[in-house]
């Protein structure tokens, strides 16, 4: 189905839910002021659904907003990753699943706006998606790019594009094969020696400005008080000392073990272009290999590191 047709179906379903008063609001995407971008919107009236859109720039993980709107009955437009985050969150009892309606969109993979921006010289003033192509225009250029070459790394490796957990799917499920077998970031990282890995991590984290955008956009980062904000005890310095930046990034990644849906929202949010998904994606791979577990595929199995079984084959339990 074309994106326009998908968009039409999303609007239709959203309108229906709001008209029948089955939900209080719909969380979806809308166009805003910049090209290559969309913005999360919160629609409360059936007429308002006309502003809902769907394209390859709907990159935000809307599951993040469940924390903010959990007291309402919400309808959320979800991609595969958003839906998996929500399932993981419902397992952690962050919201009542009965009050949430998922409008599922089998995802066509999202376009990496930073990569597109770097591909052309000059500021992009208009961008249009036409089938498998993106046409970007500036004051002195007009370039046609092949969408396939400008996808987010997390989208390239995605094998759960269809949000099977959704209450309704607006399109047929897509074929679940990755474009790339191993996440490009993980692949490069694994090829490095231990020293090189450390140097890479050290160099990349040194740009961190501690805006915590990676934490805030992440649906799984919802602690009322994050360890970096604790004063008593104080775990971490408040400045830009390398050890503090590294500490934050390691702990942030490790807290995601077995909980990260691999949506890549953290990396997209970073204003300093720090690669982050190579860590979380590597952890995802490890959890899959060691425990045969993937995040958010069913609403029964808790993440392996958040549970225990008395007949565990490891002897730590005895």
């Amino acid at each position, binding site marked *: 189905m074309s994106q326009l047709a998908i968009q039409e179906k999303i609007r239709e379903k959203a309108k229906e839910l709001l008209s029948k008063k089955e939900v*209080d609001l719909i969380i979806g995407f809308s166009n*805003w*002021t*910049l090209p290559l*971008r*969309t*913005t*999360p*919107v*919160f629609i*409360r*009236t059936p007429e308002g659904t006309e502003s809902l859109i769907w394209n390859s720039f709907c990159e*935000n993980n809307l599951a*993040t*907003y469940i924390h*903010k709107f959990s007291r309402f009955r919400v309808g959320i437009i979800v991609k595969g990753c958003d839906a998996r985050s929500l399932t993981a969150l419902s397992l952690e009892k962050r919201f009542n699943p009965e009050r949430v309606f998922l409008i599922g969109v089998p995802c066509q993979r999202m376009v990496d706006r*930073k990569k597109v*921006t*770097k591909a052309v010289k000059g*500021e992009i*003033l208009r961008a249009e998606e036409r089938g498998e192509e993106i046409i970007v225009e500036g*004051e002195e250029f007009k370039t046609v790019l092949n969408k396939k070459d400008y996808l987010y790394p997390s989208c390239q490796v995605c094998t759960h594009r269809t949000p099977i957990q959704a209450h309704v799917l607006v399109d047929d499920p897509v074929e679940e094969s990755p474009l790339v077998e191993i996440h490009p970031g993980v692949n490069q990282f694994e090829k490095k020696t231990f020293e090189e890995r450390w140097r890479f991590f050290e160099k990349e984290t040194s*740009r961190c*400005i*501690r*805006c*915590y*955008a990676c*934490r*805030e*956009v992440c649906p799984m980062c919802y602690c009322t008080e994050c360890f970096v*904000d604790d004063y008593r005890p104080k775990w971490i*310095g*408040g*400045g*830009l*000392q390398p050890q503090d930046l590294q500490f934050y990034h390691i702990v942030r990644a490790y807290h995601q073990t077995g909980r990260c849906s691999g949506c890549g*929202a953290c990396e*997209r*949010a970073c*204003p*300093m*272009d720090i690669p982050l998904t190579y860590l979380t994606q590597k952890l995802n791979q490890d959890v899959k290999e060691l425990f045969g577990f993937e995040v958010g595929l069913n609403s029964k199995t808790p993440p392996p590191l958040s549970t225990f079984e008395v007949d565990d084959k490891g002897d730590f339990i005895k």
Partner: protein
Amino acid sequence: MMRRLDKRDFETFLESVMEECDLYAPVSLTEGVSVFKKIDHPNEVNFSQLLTQKPAKEIFFPQSEPMFNYERRGGKIQITSNEEVKRERILLGARPCDIEAISLIEKVFMSEPYTDLYFLEKRRKTTLIGLGCNPPLSTCFCSSAGGDPFLRSGSDLFLVDLGDAYSVELLTEKGMVFSKNKFLREADPEDLRRIKELEDKAFEKVGFSIPMDGIEKRLDLMMESFFWDRVHEKCIGCRICTYLCPTCHCFDIVDEGDFARGQRMRNWDSCLSPLYSLETSGHNPRPTTRERTRQRLMHKFNYFPKIFNRVGCVGCGRCIQYCPVHFDIRQAIIWTSSKRPRKPKI
């Protein structure tokens, strides 16, 4: 006074400048990410990104700055202060919005009776070399915020990129120090015309579309408006817009160290963080992003103009470019002057 600096002389010119001063300029950290940094070699200077991620305020008000060191020695505590700046400094290539923002922060940090020594010392010892914006970005709205893409005010010297050379205007006493510099040659009579052309083009692009006039008065009536219930919705509460903002100037003072030795640090703080307004009792007067977003906008467009007669925003557009959920401050300003959203029935 107007001069001309050929681009082929640019690096040698900087070298000569660096003999006497520390030079701070935009440096690229990785493709598409640049910041202002003290440079060791002129070839590090990189003007290709119109606006650096972190603004030039960092040179005067660093994100994390040791105020003093303490050490306990033989029952006595020794304190070494850190405010002194030993060498003269030059800030090169700051855009007019960043320079305008520095004069805004000056109003806060340098006005009597509370002057901030750390800021003051750095500011006094720094010569500002501005750089005109040709062309500005689509997110720029400096003209609406009281500036313009070629605003000279605040700069000691002002550069305009003319292709093969920079035109150099010596604007202040500090700037006139360069009048005898051998690399700054006689200006070409054509230069003025070309600058005018570039200015016209830039002004046209930036325009005056954002209704900034009277925003202070409008917001006076809006403290409890339903407006805020809607504006904040998509805000996820990160600190990008405040840390990348050239005028934001909040900080937090903490001691890092132990009983024997340590430092008193001053770190940037952000009103978007819940911790910012959390009180010791556990009560938080700004409990959600609604109150925090309101604080950010009210401070810039209501409290700041009340005290200093100018909006606390210079229209650089960084917060628009880098917001992970695409919050557009221009749109919020426009909304304050349009019909307010009404409270729905639910």
